[in-house]
């Protein structure tokens, strides 16, 4: 199967830029390495939660989760070997999620900043 579409002939989609072939086969050892990392980090996050780090606990937990999710996205879901467009779509999704969470929480965090009656 062809790896790249370099033809600019008379067919549709000839404008699309596949900078990576859609047929890159990830070696099994990569999958195993990612798998083992995910398992280890799962147990790490469980253990860390039993240590009192105050406000840092939630950040550590989320950071580990983000790291694990990144591994799944990049390797299991092949995004590392995918097209630029795929990467852009993933980033857009994550960015908009952050927007939703961050801006709405910003309201909740700042509600008590000003001592206005009723606010």
């Amino acid at each position, binding site marked *: 199967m062809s790896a790249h579409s370099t033809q*600019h*002939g*008379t*067919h*549709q*989609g*000839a*404008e*699309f830029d596949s900078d990576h072939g859609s047929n890159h086969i990830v070696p099994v050892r990569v999958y195993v390495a990612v798998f083992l990392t995910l398992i280890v980090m799962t147990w790490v996050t469980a253990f860390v939660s039993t240590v009192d780090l105050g406000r840092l606990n939630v950040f550590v937990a989320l950071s580990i989760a983000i790291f694990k999710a990144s591994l799944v996205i990049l390797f299991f879901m092949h995004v590392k070997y995918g097209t630029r*467009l795929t990467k852009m779509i993933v980033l*857009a*999704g994550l960015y*908009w999620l952050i*927007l*939703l969470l961050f*801006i*709405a929480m*910003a*309201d*909740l*965090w*700042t*509600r008590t*900043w*000003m001592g*206005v009656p009723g*606010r």
Partner: protein
Amino acid sequence: MITAPPPVHVKKNYLNEKTGLKSWLLTSDHKRIAILYLIVVTGFFALGGIFAGLIRLELATPAGDLFESNQYNKIFTMHGIIMVFFFLIPSIPAILGNFLIPMMIGAKDLAFPRINLLSWYIYMLGGVFTLYVLFTGGVDTGWTFYTPFSSSYSNGYVVAAGLGIFINGFSAILTGLNFIVTIHRMRAPGLTWFRLPLFVWAHYATSAIQILGTPVIAVTLFLLVLERGLHIGFFDPAYGGDPVLFQHLFWFYSHPAVYIMILPSMGVISEVISTFSSKKPFGYTFIAFSSVAIAVFGFLVWGHHLFVAGQSIYAGLVFSVLSYVVAIPSAIKVFNWAATMYKGQIRMETPMLYAIGFIGLFTVGGLTGVVLASLGMDVHLTDTYFVIAHFHYVMVGGALLGYLSGLHFWWPKMFGKMYSDVWSKVSAVLVFAGFNLTFGPQFLLGYMGMPRRYHVYPPEFQVFNVLSSAGASVLGLGLLLPAVYLTWSLKYGEDAPPNPWGATGLEWQTQSPPISENFEVTPVVTHEAYDYSTVQEVVHIG
């Protein structure tokens, strides 16, 4: 007047190639799906219009003499739900977008034709739920479903209404998904991004909003239904819930939703203004990027619906500033359209009349939006008729006029028939005049303090209310006429040539109506967009 000679027999096209109900209900042809949408969307528009008529009828007098409060609440709620979710959001994308986008990019169909059909069926299913609500007694929460009224106290059919909208949302999501993939991957050879018609750019931006925003209202309604059914307490203060959280979740989608409604219209206007000025759009790149900017910035301003809801003052300040910023890309478009017309060869055909009307009315709507974006002003104007006038100027004066402009512009392409010049122009004038008479006075009413969602008001507001209701009759008549003359044209209209308006774009290089595969041979694009020097003039002069 140039007319095509009467055909000896009708040429093969997507309409007559296969006949029978099954060939329509199981079609995967994007053009047929667009027609399916046209039929049902028009039906819902008529229904929403009837509710509008009932509202204006009641409001002609200060007393609540036509309906009781509860009934009136249900009427404006149904008007809002139907118009927003079943007309404004799908109208241009599902009808004109579906029909034209593959043609404009030189493709045979959308990327996922069967998902396109599925979209239509999902829309129908959502419509069934909504009609069920309608016939069993309605819902009275307002289309905004604010909690805890909707979750705990309302006696209406909140769950069914919420489900209807939830389902309808998936129709929009699938359409947006289809458009994004199609525009990215199915363009003809030579059709780079900056050779795309602005209509396509507008739909790309719209689709991005649909993908990113609609799921949030889906989960919001899901939570609302859960709360209503199981009394969970997400949004009920009695359990520690926060009603403002509902509003955050609701408006995170519903504000960008208004850009879903207006961006496709703007895409239409770009095409129409350019064609009837015989001039390429001024500042093409700016218009293209402004569509994307509106999509991006549109997600940053939703808190302006929560200024008086209990949101923190700091959040309010930030949202206010951002709401001013989001007006800029829209303004850029307006300037560019005006500049396109400057020193162009203007032809006042019906689509152009609607487009010019759009520019004026959308500007008024947009500017009054900026007024509302000001925190201080909004405290006084929120929940008054000023807000209603504002959004009707952008939604009706803007989105609806854009839809009518597009419908009249591409009708000859879609059906191969020309419609009556006289009647379509009369309609356009009636719509413009009627609309202004209906909603102009409402700015004043709002400024004077008349609250929205009330069917009883102090007698000093009656004069403007009567003017508004009178305007609504004119508007209604103006909107009824196209139903007549457009339908009439299907049978009795003169045959349309491939390019009656002298427009550029790949869709005008095919026969009217097009063949099922759109093109005999996949086109290869070698010149920039809006190159009027290459257009063969078979211009329809009315």
